């Protein structure tokens, strides 16, 4: 099959050096998804909605 050469049975554990924390973050799409949704939700939506809710109602 020409599609790919099977890899030797090596795993991430076989690497000599530990993976840096920053690379672990970049390699984890679900952690990035959490951060990428949480940050604008807090800084843009929740903060913005709190400001609007805090506007005094005209009497």
């Amino acid at each position, binding site marked *: *099959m*020409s*599609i*790919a*050469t*099977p*890899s*030797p049975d*090596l795993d991430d554990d076989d690497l000599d050096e530990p993976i840096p924390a920053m*690379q672990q*973050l*970049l*390699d984890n*799409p*679900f952690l*990035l*998804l959490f*951060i*990428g*949704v949480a*940050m*604008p*939700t807090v*800084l*843009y*939506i929740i*903060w*913005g*909605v709190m*400001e*609007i809710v805090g*506007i005094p109602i005209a009497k």
Partner: protein
Amino acid sequence: MAINRNFRTCPTTGLVFHEQGEKLIRWNAVAGVVSLLVGGVLALLVILTRWPAVHLLPADWFYLALTAHGLDMLVFWIIFFEIAVLYFCASTLLRCRIAAPRWAWTGFFLMVIGALTNNVAVFRGDSSVMFTSYAPMGAHPAFYLGLILFAVGALIGLFVFLGTLVVAKSEKTYIGSLPLVTFGAVTACIIAVFTIASGAIILIPTFLWSLGLVNSIDSLMYKTVWWAFGHSSQQINVAAHVSIWYLIAAIVFGAKPMSEKVSRGAFLLYIFFLQLASAHHLLADPGLTSNWKIFNTSYAMYLAVLASMVHGLTVPGAIEVAQRQKGYNKGLFEWLRKAPWGNPVFSGMFISLIGFGFLGGISGVMMGTEQLNLIIHNTIYVPGHFHATVVVGTTLAFMSLTYFLIPVLFRRELMFPGLSKWQPYLFGLGMSGFAVFMMGAGTLGVPRRHWDMTFAGNPLGHEFPGAAYLMMGLMALSGLVAIVGGVAYLLITVGSVFFGKKIETPDFKAVTVREGRAAWPARQPVAVAIASHGNIGLGGFVAPGTFTLAMVFLVAFVLYYFVNWKYLSTVWPLS
């Protein structure tokens, strides 16, 4: 049910296509191009109405056409094509089967039904509420329902993309980190999840309000949350088209990023900060404090701008390095002069990059500054800016990629190859002129969206200077050139896909998980790493041409920024 593990390898490029993945990429791309066709016809009508000398449509038809144009272009064309790009980046680049293809098809059909429902609602004539559909201006319930169905379908597509990454990792079809282009697609996906969630938060209650089940929608609350959807949807584009720039640099030149770490760091800045720029749409609204406005635009947004500047530097830098290594090493710009300007995959991508940076990027930073925003808020400058980003930047990048995909994905020869060489120039330069003249007219105060800039018959009329009419006329002429480029694109792509000569390639074959595993890359000898880039460049710079372009950009940026402060001082006298 048996998992479909049928793959084929493109004999020209070596790219690997999963059978279901290929069909999904094709159909999403086709649905996108159909939306582009509808949106393009409407664009012509809008241009011919905003051109004061022609003023084609009556008011009600103009607002209908503008509403449908905005939705078909900014939502349906872009997101259909982006889903195709995401599947390509996950399935093809990682040589992996698509996760949950049935769910992917369900998502696709929901998107199609949603787009049709929304279009029908608009063309009925009672939903001419513009792309923004600001409450309390109400549309037919089908308008909101269509958008909600489309969003749900797109969300399913995003999770199929994420699922495919999980499958690729578990079946070890790649080793180590995701390729940079796929990482850029992950960035687009993350922004898209936030975008669609925000859309759901505001569009579901608005839909219920249109049915009479909710009493009222607060207009400022609507605007604030809606822009988390409306502007972030355009940030998906940024991440997607930047990924395509890297992809095309690799396809055409075999270029590798100058620094993968820096490029990934720039995508990370997008994930953290890009969506916050939505706040610049609310800079003139009194209900939100300056703290919220300035944090979200003038602090956080600049970090996203920094990321765009990094990409704008590293993509041409990577091309320059690749070209110099091939021997185009003379002077500052031989690498650029000897680039394949007749290849629409490259020319379109490079015009997209320059137009996005110089026109869209600089104007975006100006608009995101609270004080300067007052000069142009709600003028035609705003669509000038986003036609530079979304049309010159994103649409042209997508068009360029199409020229690569027609032979590789659709297995058809490109029809009208002579016309395809000119198409990126017609579309890119026409649309750049269109954006520049819109911005010029906006600086003179011409309002956006307004049917008649003469305000004929209005009790409170306003007379714009002759230069504003000149700008609007030039805008229309440039727009017509871009329309010709758009027609050429549709002619080439639709003609090639349906009538182009078939390219015979080896068909799909079943591949076991073990056969599909990625090979470990060969270790480079130390000498290669030490010697790399050693003999190219000028004056100690590996990419001096790109550095010069970056300096030109910086000077243009600074000058334009300060010219606008000077302009602000003249329109807003304090003495």
